[in-house]
């Protein structure tokens, strides 16, 4: 072992640093969970408004709440898996705890900014702030409320960007090159011989993919933010609506996708701990992630299928790469995860239950997505609640289930305080049944052509919103059960983790 490696190993094991890393991670996880709970209740509130039981409140409040819920959840989908990945890499390379603390502070500021924008300013464009709606509210909000919103978006963009850049920089120093982080050597030789240098692993490959795709998206997203800010202050200024929409979805689609793929990295690390089987890099895995890297650049065109002024070529390209992006998900991560569990004799404690539910959510939500990413089908489903069905499937029943699985795995490890398995199982049942009710009602509403983002549902379909609301009540019960257990756990004795399943830190990288 070289001196440099020896030094960095001792830095990583420094007790003060370990404590800071653990505390920061617990802080992120608990903040994320709290926001998830509050934003989930905002979702419940929206379904209540759409069902008509809250009367005219829907007319004033639906769109600000929609915007709050949407941007908040999208930020969670990106930042919570990022926090998990940060922890994983902080075990391997000296990720800066100071930078990460600054990111946390900035994120708290972003939360405040979004609350000011939506609840005080009543900003209500939906999270995508489609140009030029922010400047044309017909009196519902004033343009100033767009400024805190844009600043909050900027913060989220920069937090992910900063950690991605740090990750790449430290990763290159550890692994030697971006190619080694991707595991390109597996392409030439499926079983590369040990050459004494650190070898990549699944989480590193996933994280490298997200970093390389997020950097260009963040830059183009920043261009959009600047152009939009100029128009706030220079009212005569304007840009092309079609260009703005392309930029919005290049960055927006990328943001939720990097969140999903960072969540996959968490799955790669945590599921093997419970299945007690190794999840190794192989050639097809590397190929899959390379395909994902490319697909991510072009799949976003599926958001513009109904913009016929867009060149026909990009419409077809959008469909090709949307289909391509399904392959790695289905063949590498979901197939791999399911095989890891199959006949492993896994003990179904709460953490693997949530992880497994997350894989199902990704697969089933993804099926709805692939159908809708077919341009000829999108003609009939675009901007109906079908869309809400597919992304709640992937994000709420996928990424957020990975998050809850991570929480049940990491919280006891990091704090030494146990969580109740009985409550965990009950919560998983409530969240599973309630969550799928919410999602399936969205899909069904899409089949009957209910538009998305309607504060008031089409006549005769309010009952669907009501059923969705009841599903959301079940989810809320599950969420509150977990919250109560987390609060009670503070009084439980701190024990050092002894269970083999609960060893701190990620599973060791495969040799």
């Amino acid at each position, binding site marked *: 072992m070289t001196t440099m490696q020896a030094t960095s190993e001792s830095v990583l094991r420094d007790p003060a640093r370990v404590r800071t890393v653990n505390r920061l991670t617990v802080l992120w996880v608990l903040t994320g969970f709290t926001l998830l709970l509050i934003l989930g209740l905002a979702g419940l509130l929206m379904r209540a408004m759409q069902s008509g039981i809250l009367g005219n409140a829907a007319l004033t409040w639906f769109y600000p709440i929609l915007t709050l819920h949407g941007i908040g959840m999208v930020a969670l989908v990106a930042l919570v898996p990022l926090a998990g990945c940060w922890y994983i890499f902080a075990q391997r390379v000296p990720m800066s705890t100071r930078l990460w603390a600054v990111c946390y502070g900035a994120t708290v500021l972003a939360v405040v900014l979004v609350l000011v924008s939506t609840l005080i300013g009543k900003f209500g464009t939906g999270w995508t702030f489609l140009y030029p709606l922010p400047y044309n509210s017909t009196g519902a909000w004033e343009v100033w409320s767009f400024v805190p919103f844009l600043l909050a978006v900027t913060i989220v963009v920069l937090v992910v960007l900063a950690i991605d850049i740090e990750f790449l920089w430290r990763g290159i120093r550890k692994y030697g090159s971006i190619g080694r982080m991707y595991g390109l050597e597996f392409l030439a030789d499926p079983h590369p011989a040990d050459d004494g240098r650190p070898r990549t692993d699944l989480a590193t490959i996933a994280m490298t993919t997200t970093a390389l795709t997020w950097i260009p998206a963040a830059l183009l997203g920043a261009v959009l933010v600047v152009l939009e800010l100029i128009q706030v202050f220079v009212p005569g200024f304007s840009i092309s609506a079609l260009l703005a929409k392309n930029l919005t979805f290049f960055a927006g689609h990328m943001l939720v996708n990097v969140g999903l793929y960072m969540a996959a990295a968490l799955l790669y690390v945590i599921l093997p701990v419970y299945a007690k089987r190794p999840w190794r890099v192989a050639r097809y895995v590397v190929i899959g992630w390379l395909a994902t890297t490319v697909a991510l650049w072009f799949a976003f065109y599926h958001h513009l299928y109904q913009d*016929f002024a867009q060149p026909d070529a990009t419409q077809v390209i959008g469909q*090709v790469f949307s289909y391509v992006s399904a392959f790695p998900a289905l*063949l590498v991560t979901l197939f791999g995860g399911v095989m890891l569990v199959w006949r492993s004799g896994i003990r179904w404690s709460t953490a693997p239950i949530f992880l*497994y539910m997350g894989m199902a959510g990704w697969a089933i939500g993804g099926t709805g997505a692939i*159908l809708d990413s077919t341009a000829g089908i999108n003609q009939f489903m675009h901007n109906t609640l079908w869309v809400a069905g597919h992304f709640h499937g992937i994000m709420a029943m996928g990424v957020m289930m990975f998050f809850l699985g991570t929480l049940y795995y990491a919280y006891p490890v990091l704090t030494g305080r146990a969580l109740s398995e009985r409550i965990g199982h009950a919560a998983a049942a409530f969240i599973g049944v309630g969550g799928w009710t919410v999602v399936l009602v969205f899909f069904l509403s899409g089949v009957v*052509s209910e538009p998305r983002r309607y504060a008031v549902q089409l006549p005769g379909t309010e009952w669907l919103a009501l059923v969705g609301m009841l599903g959301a009540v079940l989810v809320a019960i599950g969420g509150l059960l977990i919250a109560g257990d987390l609060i009670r756990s503070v009084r439980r004795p701190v024990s050092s983790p002894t269970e083999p399943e609960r060893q701190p830190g990620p599973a060791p990288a495969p040799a």
Partner: protein
Amino acid sequence: MPAQWMVGIAFVILGGALAAGFVWIALDARTEEWDGVYKRAGLLRRRWFVGLLAFAVVAFAVSMTWLPYQFVRAAQLPGQPLAVAVTGQQYAFNLDTQCLPTDKPVEFSVTSKDVTHGFAIYSPDGHIVGQTQAMPGYTNVLRVSLPTPGTYILRCDELCGPGHPFMQRQITVGSCGGSAGACGASACG
């Protein structure tokens, strides 16, 4: 059958198969050595890949005939269409006609005065039969045929401000102004 139902049925079949697979695997309580599972998984993955690829290629090829764009629709719906200009604005659709024919294609040229709107055509039984975006500065051309007469509703399906869910308009297909007879080329210009 409305297109949406077929999509729904496809989803129930594919999503249901996936859900059943997940449940079946979770409930399989037998245990097996990883090395053996890993080898079998590799074989299965290769088959799964080939099957998925074949399915995707066929689905892709077929789906190209469903494209709503002019280069496909002009060939599928030939003949001189009735041209209709549509301008969206917060919160109304302006059209230069009130009545559409059943016996020839209709070609909507859709744009917007202010923000981006959606332009979705709802059939009398309440399903979207075609749509495009109404975007300021651009004109989107949507060619459709509307063989079923009745009262259709045009609805905005792109969030355009607080009045969004109320942005709609009725339009008659098939018989103009209550007068008898199908709406032919001359009656509905």
